[in-house]
């Protein structure tokens, strides 16, 4: 057990625990806050994987935007402070079974894979993964097309979201 391993195990445990809370807690606001915790855990995982950029972006995008949006959505879609009634549907045990099966299946399949015990190679000295990432994103030989497609997707989603969420009865926003 090295320090890194301990840190990983702690982070993973916290993350999984908060993820569990996300899917089980009755209070949806709490679920969203647990989601924040989960996301933070994932961000730390990225940091452990030497992907600092991903970690920061995870915080900016997921916590700063997506989680906030969830909280907004939760608040906008209910009338009471507390959530009433059961939060899981009647067939939840089937779902649980399926989830466990999926986990089992995944782990089982991974188990037979030789690469499971690979250890990470040392980061090359002087290797700046952010520069490499930037190059890869906009280099014509690499991923500029997916990048552009993703940006178009974002634009479309933006327009679509505005259109869908716009309340035709409330009319012009200036009124």
């Amino acid at each position, binding site marked *: 057990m090295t320090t890194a391993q301990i840190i990983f195990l702690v982070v993973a445990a916290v993350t999984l625990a908060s993820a569990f809370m*996300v899917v089980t807690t009755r209070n949806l606001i709490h679920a969203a806050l647990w989601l924040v915790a989960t996301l933070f855990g994932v961000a730390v995982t990225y940091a452990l994987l030497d992907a600092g950029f991903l970690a920061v972006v995870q915080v900016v995008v997921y916590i700063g935007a997506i989680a906030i949006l969830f909280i907004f959505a939760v608040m906008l879609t209910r009338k009471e402070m507390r959530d009433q009634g059961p939060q899981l549907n009647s067939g939840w045990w*089937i779902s649980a079974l399926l989830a466990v099966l999926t986990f089992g299946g995944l782990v089982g399949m991974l188990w037979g894979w030789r690469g499971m015990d690979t250890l990470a190679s040392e980061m090359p000295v002087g*290797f700046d993964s952010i520069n490499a990432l930037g190059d890869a994103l906009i280099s014509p030989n690499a991923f500029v097309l997916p990048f552009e497609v993703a940006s178009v997707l974002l634009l479309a989603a933006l327009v679509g979201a505005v259109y869908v969420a716009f309340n035709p009865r409330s009319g012009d926003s200036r009124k």
Partner: protein
Amino acid sequence: MIPLSWYLIFAAGLFSLGLFGVLARRNAVAILLGVELMLNAVNINLAAFWRYGNVADMTGQVFAIIVFAVAAAEVAVGLALVISVYRSRNTVVADEIDMLKW
């Protein structure tokens, strides 16, 4: 040092939890929360494979970034839909939104 398998199992667990959330929660917003968990699980895998593979090949990180973008788009549209549905049907329980049946 941490073997790759730890990350993969961690991700698989996160994924399964997300899956459970998606399948079991009644609230549509909560379903979307589950989806986010699943996406994050995938992202962990992407990042891990990047780190444990050839570090100079940025594919893993690039796709993680693209997943971020997709997730943002998905949440924006998904929540907009939920709010829209809530406006017209006054409920966000997924089971009660079943107009599209035979």
